[in-house]
């Protein structure tokens, strides 16, 4: 049976760079993929590109490729690579990699450049005028017009179609923008295994969506962020990235290199299969819909898990007709401040500081849209689910007070922070310490919605050094 070995290369910006290099060097891979984009990264990159058309891609791509391409070159098996690090400027990113390959004297390299995922805001207006309803997927509301004058950027989570086309044209590396994390991997399965977007392949593609999900967060399914952390070892300080051996029938073996730390076990994969998937019967990706309740995990050896069918029901359903469209808009500014207070009586001091801050906001006429008061070391991560406070004898020796404000303007956010965050330490007992607050940040809020696939024509351009 035909099979292909696909490695994870990155799952964000930044990620452990050596994870990708280890997979490339020691993973015996045919393909490797790099996801560099978080939910908001595209909006930030589009903003950069609008100001300077030589920027707008993930700068990390270049040093990563500088380390990776020599490995790619020296291997007998020249694995193929796929990246969404092009961000808002895939073409500029490809040019930078081509220049790098010349500087490194690597000889020929072919890059497939995918564009079309970034939409001009005029396109949104045209579609709204034609009657398309941009329903907010988070809230179910149809209220885009309310945010129209604050919109900054619009981008579509696109599928693997053009990745496959690029590989068919012998691209060594594919660079795109908002290629969905999952599609970066689906292309690597579909191209070599000959799967098509047709009825006979939805089961395999469904499994591919599942395995793609296991790979797309890199080390997260190989033992990082795990319930098993106490037994997971990093002898050399290098986490492992997962590698999937995918078979023609959609079954797979997930593993990692022996040269890396971490752990691949059914539980570390299970941790990832219940992670951020929402309705597990319909895990919807641009290239297919996976029914995660039809996946079976089985430990077959150290760091080896077999991923097969749970029953005779299909693991996948046809890909959706609509693609996910994300729009970013301005939503004010956030400021925050952290003060560490010394005991005894840390809780009593914290309550007194809270009372002071609430009164002082009022006294100064400051009206933040939102304020969050939390105690670091007690309830900052889990809010109302934190345990009851201990009696004074069992209190921690110190506690952090973190206060955060959301305001319409940067000036007001700064005033809240200085007057009612930073200065509040002075009203406390002896021995409070304060930290350098992070910069006041603009809030880019997201409006997630859907757009018909045919409204998002994509383009593929091949760039190369011969």
């Amino acid at each position: 049976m035909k099979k292909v070995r696909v490695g994870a290369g990155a799952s964000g910006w930044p990620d452990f760079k050596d994870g990708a290099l280890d997979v490339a060097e020691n993973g015996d891979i045919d393909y490797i993929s790099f996801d560099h984009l978080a939910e908001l990264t595209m909006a930030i990159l589009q903003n950069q590109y609008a100001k300077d058309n030589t920027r707008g891609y993930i700068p990390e791509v270049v040093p990563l490729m500088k380390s990776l391409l020599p490995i790619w070159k020296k291997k007998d098996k020249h694995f193929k690579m796929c990246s969404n690090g092009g961000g808002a400027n895939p073409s500029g990113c490809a040019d930078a990699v081509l220049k790098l390959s010349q500087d490194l004297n690597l000889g020929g390299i072919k890059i497939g450049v995918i564009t079309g995922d970034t939409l001009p805001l005029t396109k949104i207006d045209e579609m709204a005028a034609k009657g398309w309803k941009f329903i907010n997927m988070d809230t179910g509301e149809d209220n885009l017009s309310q945010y129209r004058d604050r919109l900054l950027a619009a981008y579509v989570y696109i599928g693997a179609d053009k990745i496959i086309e690029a590989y068919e044209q012998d691209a060594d590396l594919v660079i795109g923008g908002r290629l969905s994390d999952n599609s970066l991997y689906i292309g690597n399965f579909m191209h070599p295994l000959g799967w098509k977007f047709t009825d006979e392949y939805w089961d395999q593609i469904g499994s591919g969506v599942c395995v793609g999900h296991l790979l797309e967060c890199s080390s997260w399914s190989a033992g990082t962020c795990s319930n098993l952390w106490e037994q997971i070892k990093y002898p050399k300080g290098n986490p492992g990235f997962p590698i999937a051996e995918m078979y023609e029938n959609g079954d797979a073996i997930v593993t990692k290199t022996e040269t890396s730390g971490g752990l691949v076990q059914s539980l570390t994969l299970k941790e990832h299969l219940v992670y951020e998937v929402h309705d597990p019967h319909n895990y919807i990706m641009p290239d297919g819909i996976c029914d995660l309740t039809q996946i079976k995990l089985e430990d077959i050896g150290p760091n080896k898990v077999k991923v097969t069918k749970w029953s005779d029901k299909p693991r996948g359903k046809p890909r959706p007709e609509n693609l996910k469209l994300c729009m970013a808009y301005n939503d004010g500014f956030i400021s925050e401040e952290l003060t560490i207070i010394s005991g005894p009586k840390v809780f009593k001091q914290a309550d007194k500081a809270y009372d002071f801050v609430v009164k002082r906001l009022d006294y100064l006429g400051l009206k933040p849209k939102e304020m969050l008061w939390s105690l670091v070391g007690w309830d900052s991560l889990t809010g109302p689910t934190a345990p009851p406070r201990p009696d004074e004898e069992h209190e921690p020796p110190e506690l952090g007070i973190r206060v955060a404000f959301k305001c319409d303007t940067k000036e007001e956010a700064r005033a809240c922070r200085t007057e009612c965050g930073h200065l509040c330490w002075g009203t406390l007992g002896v021995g409070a310490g304060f930290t350098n607050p992070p910069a006041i940040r603009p809030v880019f809020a997201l409006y997630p919605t859907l757009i018909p696939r045919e409204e998002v024509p994509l383009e593929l351009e091949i760039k190369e050094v011969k």
Partner: protein
Amino acid sequence: MAKKKIKVRDIAWYRSGDKGDIANIGLMAKGDKEYEILKEEVTPDRIKAHFKDWCKGDVVIYPMDNLQSIEIVMFKSLGGGATKTLRVDQTGKAMCVGLSRMELEVDESVLPTTV
């Protein structure tokens, strides 16, 4: 029948994340009996009561027999979502830790001997 108080973390592993303002918690049972308890005792009403004003929307639970896990989807539960929230935990990674502390009252007869 004698009842015993346990915590969710006594019978399940946990992991959580986000999508917009939706918190998504996966609970993975530590065994067969534990999975039955999870399905029976971890309910939307109890979750909402446990998280108080941090959970402002509906809670939907999907059992996954194949992984002996339940997938919990909590709407309007991240203070507006990663990019808008004032919380330290912008992407809901610790929501599962909060849920792991929830107390359940269970018949001793259905508990595995290890709990």
